[in-house]
């Protein structure tokens, strides 16, 4: 085999209290699309950041094109020919689109920046990605998906030998993903080495040649993707043998809801948010809100939690008519809500795990009512054990946890309030397969063992089908079908979503 484009050998990285990487090897050849796989917290991002100079490695060597390199800043990495698109868009929203693509390497004329060329070349670059926008407008005029494409345009245009894409597709839709893949193949043919990180197995199998699997900061192995069946890949990621993984799909049996109704929402709607939905939630039921993004599933959850007020219809809880004016009212009725975007509206990174868990309880009790420290610790420890949250101890800061574990902390926060109804909005987004399964199982066991009602909202059909005992299907901000028992299947949901349009 020809000389590798990039060889990382025995990479070590230690964070206070955590060994993030130990003895990791990674090899990338020119003209190869190589995926880094692993559960959340396995060390994928850390490895990337070591390579791009954001973090300094504590041991090991990096050889690129036969030359030893050690980038200390992102700038140095760029100069070596390593270009990166991060998961969160890292551009400046106050600058124009064109400038975001060219800043730091602006073409010049007579010593001054040549804006005309910048704008022209940006337009051409974006046109190659099939994006046609006004490049002289500032970045904040455009959606996150577009910003992501712009970030990719920037990365591609830098004279790079290695392109790293850290979950670039999480904010792209199918069409946009296809475009991206087209571009990636084009770059591949030009001899660029591409590192592609994604949680979507389909995408990995579609685009990648090789895969390197990490687990708990250690190398599991590097494989040719065509010779690695999916189940085996998953088994390697979660570190269980094949039979155990197969078991994961055969789920713990679904819960059996009682006859008793906990919440009954009749024809609720809110202007500009939701047209008309009625939902009956029984005790011990895992109910799914299915539908496409923007179909009204999140909005329904928000109405049930009092974030938005209903303008028509009524909500009855335990048979009593209730007027939910704000989330506090909903909390008093023992409803909990884990929002969709955990970074923005859930987790407080600078507080410890314990403090994050206690938060909702404290809010419910009011700030004057102090929860004794011992009790707080006990609650936190119970939750950590119950949800299998991976922490060094309960006082660890939440921002140092991986995405999946942060999600668990939020769920723990609401469990601590001992709700009768727990609403989980996209609880599994952006987290790995193993943790996903754990969260699904947890939803079921909460319903089964505690008789709790759970509302489960997810874009992943399989997950809903596996977990829920009832599915409310929505389209265009109204309910279009309700599926129970045998009717619950991916097919059934698809048909219900497509139904009216056909």
């Amino acid at each position, binding site marked *: 085999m020809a000389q590798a484009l990039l060889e990382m050998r025995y990479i070590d990285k230690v964070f206070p209290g955590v060994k993030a990487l130990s003895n990791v090897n990674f090899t990338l050849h020119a003209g190869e699309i190589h995926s880094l796989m692993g559960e959340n917290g396995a060390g994928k991002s850390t490895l990337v950041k070591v390579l791009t100079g954001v973090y300094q490695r504590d041991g090991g060597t990096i050889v690129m094109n036969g030359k030893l390199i050690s980038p200390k*800043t992102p700038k140095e990495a760029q100069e070596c020919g390593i270009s990166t698109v991060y998961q969160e868009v*890292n551009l400046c929203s*106050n600058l124009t689109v064109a400038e975001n693509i060219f800043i730091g390497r602006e073409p010049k004329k007579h010593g*001054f920046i040549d804006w005309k060329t910048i704008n022209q070349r940006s337009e051409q670059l974006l046109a190659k990605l*099939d994006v046609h926008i006004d490049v002289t407008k500032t970045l*904040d*005029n455009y959606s996150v998906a577009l910003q992501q494409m712009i970030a990719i345009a920037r990365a591609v245009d830098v004279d790079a030998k290695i392109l790293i894409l850290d979950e670039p597709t999480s904010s792209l839709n199918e069409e946009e993903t296809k475009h991206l893949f087209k571009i990636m193949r084009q770059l591949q043919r030009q001899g660029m080495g591409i590192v592609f990180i994604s949680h979507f197995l389909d995408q990995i199998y579609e685009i990648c040649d090789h895969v390197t699997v990490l687990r708990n900061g250690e190398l599991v192995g590097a494989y040719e993707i065509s010779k690695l069946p999916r189940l085996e890949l998953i088994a390697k990621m979660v570190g269980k043998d094949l039979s155990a993984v197969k078991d994961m799909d055969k789920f713990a049996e679904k819960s059996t809801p009682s006859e008793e109704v906990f919440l009954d929402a009749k024809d609720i709607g809110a202007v500009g948010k939701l047209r008309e939905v009625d939902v009956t939630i029984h005790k011990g039921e895992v109910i799914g809100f299915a539908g496409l*993004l923007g179909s009204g599933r999140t909005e329904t959850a928000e109405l049930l939690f009092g974030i938005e007020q209903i303008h028509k219809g009524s909500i009855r809880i335990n048979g009593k008519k209730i007027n939910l004016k704000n989330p506090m009212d909903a909390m008093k009725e023992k409803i909990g809500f884990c929002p969709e975007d955990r970074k923005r509206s859930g987790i407080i990174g600078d507080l410890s795990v314990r403090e994050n868990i206690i938060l909702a309880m404290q809010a419910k009790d009011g700030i004057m009512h102090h929860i004794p420290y011992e009790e707080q610790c006990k609650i936190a420890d119970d939750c950590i054990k119950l949800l299998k949250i991976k922490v060094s101890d309960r006082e660890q800061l939440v921002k140092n946890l991986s995405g999946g574990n942060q999600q668990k902390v939020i769920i723990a926060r609401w469990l601590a309030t001992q709700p009768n109804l727990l609403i989980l909005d996209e609880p599994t987004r952006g987290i790995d397969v193993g943790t996903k399964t754990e969260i699904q199982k947890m939803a079921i066991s909460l319903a089964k063992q505690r008789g709790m009602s759970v509302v489960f909202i997810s874009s992943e059909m399989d997950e809903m089908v596996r977990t829920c005992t009832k599915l409310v299907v929505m389209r*265009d901000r109204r309910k279009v079908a309700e599926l129970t028992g045998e009717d619950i299947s991916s097919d059934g949901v698809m048909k219900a979503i497509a139904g009216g349009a056909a």
Partner: protein
Amino acid sequence: MKNRLNQLIASKYFSFFVTVLLFAILYGAGIAMYKGFMRPQVFLNLFIDNAALIIVTVGITFTLIIAGIDLSVGAVLALVCMVLAWLLANTGLPVGVCVLLVMVMGTVFGAAQGYIISKFDLQPFIITLAGMFFCRGLTAVISQDTIQIENPTWVALASYRVDLGIGFVSIGAIVALLTIVVAAVVLGYTKFGRTVFAIGGSESSSALMGLPVFRTKVMVYAISGFCSSLGGLAYSLIMLTGYNLHGLGMEMDAIASSVIGGTLLTGGVGFIPGALVGVLIQGVILTFISFQGTLSAWWTKIVVGALLCVFIIMQAFITEQKSKLSSKSSMEDNNDPPIQPTPSGAES
């Protein structure tokens, strides 16, 4: 019509337009009320009288764009005036050398503040507040009393007038205008200038994009120090003294001018010509008061206070409008067809 209004609001120069419009209205009102306002010299006097403030405002605008601040500008200006007066009075050094010395002093002081802020990731507010106390204190230590400048070269420079045909301007005013032009070009057309804006937009993104964040931040504070010193020279040309209380509160006037001129305190947005008009607006109000003759000069502060308030609210309004516009162009969470221009080729 509504769309065009939205476009105008979303335009980078919206607040600059508003500022210029306001200046024109104020000036027009002056002409309507007082005949003397018509004379071109009144307009030129705005530059002569406010030369120092214009230069200092340019410097502080750099720090505001990177979402920082420099509270030490007024004190540095006073220190420069004082050291210059002391040097001219007590040493036989030629004027050129004295000027060079104070310029280096102010610039190095600014760079030092920038280094401390960037190196230890500290709040610029606190560091430059400390710098302000330090310089103001040092000024008083050199002399509690006013030191007159009697150096003939400096006095000659102070009274030198450049004839523009329609009137005359001072050397300070010319330096101020040059500063404006140089700063505008630097911010608009150099890598350094654009990096300044990028840092204001997002420091962490800038670092990830491989921009020299540390170096740029230090340079920004050095520029602010440089402008404070240059402003000090212009101030000295008008006052011909070194005095402990020179430029007291000038940092606030400079911040106000910059904000009225369209700079956002949250960083990433700033416009040098706007800052100039911001200073001129304050100047016009002062001119008004001197024409009127009976009002206290403090009315300037009252009007400027009210203006600041209005401008801040206006900026909040613009930001809100903008985020509304961008959510419209978002493709997610929206079933309506996107508004022109098509935000993505995905649909085509």
